[in-house]
């Protein structure tokens, strides 16, 4: 656990640049990419650690991708309906 904490601390310095670079690689591959900043919702006090580790939670990321897909599909339907 100690080693992982040290590695995460070293990576933290470069995290924003990594996210930026990851986005640029995705763009270069023809896949648009967004980075979001999400505030911790009210009423979730005491769950700070769980909130901060959400980006590494596979289940959450899968649910988020589904949400983005559903949202974009709805937007797509609205767009084609308005034509």
């Amino acid at each position: 656990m100690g080693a992982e904490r040290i590695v995460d601390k070293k990576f933290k310095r470069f995290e924003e640049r990594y996210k930026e670079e990851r986005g640029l690689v995705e763009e270069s591959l023809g896949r648009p990419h967004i980075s979001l900043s999400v505030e911790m919702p009210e009423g979730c006090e005491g769950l700070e650690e769980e909130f901060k580790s959400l980006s590494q939670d596979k289940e959450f990321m899968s649910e988020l991708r589904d949400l983005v897909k559903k949202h974009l599909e709805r937007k797509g339907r609205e767009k084609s309906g308005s034509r």
Partner: protein
Amino acid sequence: MSNAMAVEPVKYLLVYVLTLLLAVSEVFPLSVSAMLGALLMAWFGLNDGLFTYEEIFSFIDLRLIALLIGVMITVETVGRSGLFRVLGLYAVKLAGGSPAWLFVALSVISAATSLFLSDAAAVLILSATALAISRELGYDPTPFVVASALMINLGGTGTLIGSVSNMIIGLNAGFDFVEFAAYLLPCELMLWWVTIALLYLYYRERLRASPRLLGEYRVRVENKGEVAKAALILTVMIALYVSSERLGIPAEAVALFTAVLALTSTRYDPVEIFERIDWDTVFFVASFLVLVHGLERTGILQALSQLIYEASRGSLAYATLLTLLVSGVTSMFLANVAVALTFVPPLKALNLPDKRPLWSALVLGTNLGGASIPVTSVVFAMAVGALRHEGLRVDMGELSKVGLLTSLAQLAFSALYLLAYFKLPF
């Protein structure tokens, strides 16, 4: 030098050790640990009359600092253009969908990128590329990302501007760009293939996925003009370094000229470029120079020089192997810049007729030992951090094993190379 050994050297040695321990413990950033050490060294040294206030500032090698900053500005500007991202993605495209060829292509482009970019910038680009592509194809990303980090550490070992420790050693040894490359670039290029073969053998089971096609994979180059300019700046930089000795232009002057050329010929905001310079390393080097030169005044480093001479029984071959081994192993646990700065005065003081093998051994030791363990290596930690950031589980023990095995194999190969290249008799 007249004050050497006239003072009690133990407290100075303690300051040095304390600084290294602070740097390793990560209580403070590297720069702050070294600044604290330099402050204590200055305080004791001034009180003991070991050196004067003016001399403290003369300990900071401005030529080295100019070289560091000039190279950092140039690589930051060139890196920003996306040139290396585009090259990396084209290399991946050339490899097709085969995991084995993808592994080789990413490894080669990682080392090649690191010849020109800082290790930190290179690892950001290549980790992002390796993760994006391996996930796209459904391959295990760990072998690609780890190989990329280890190859980035290796890349640049053979050039004067390839790493901070190379700049320190090269300037002190009096090597120009061509001379440096003549001694060390052949070794680096051979090590590329030794390392790729070793890592492939280690990860072969995890690279046995069925080849998959990359589908509609097209590399998009948004800013072709900036990419072309970056390629031109790099070409001018290499041409100037190669001819610098003949033209009588010192390496730091080439670095500053190229930095100004990069800043004036691109459209990036200089303030943003300056913000991204690795000031932590610049301040670390400046402060550690005060620490090392202070220590030198106590006579401790001359004693170390004598120790190397006696341990090697005056043999250049033994002294070279000893320098390679000690600098390589210490660089596995300590910042390799600190190791390079510490070794410079004893090697300079060593009473041997030809020191080229010793300087070359120090270059190889400090570079190759630099990415053995994720917790002590920034490059390795960044790659592992990227894996963890993507939600992948990493086994730190296994990664340390891979890093240590690779470093030890590289050091063993380098020992044979130095003995053969310089025809060193025992």
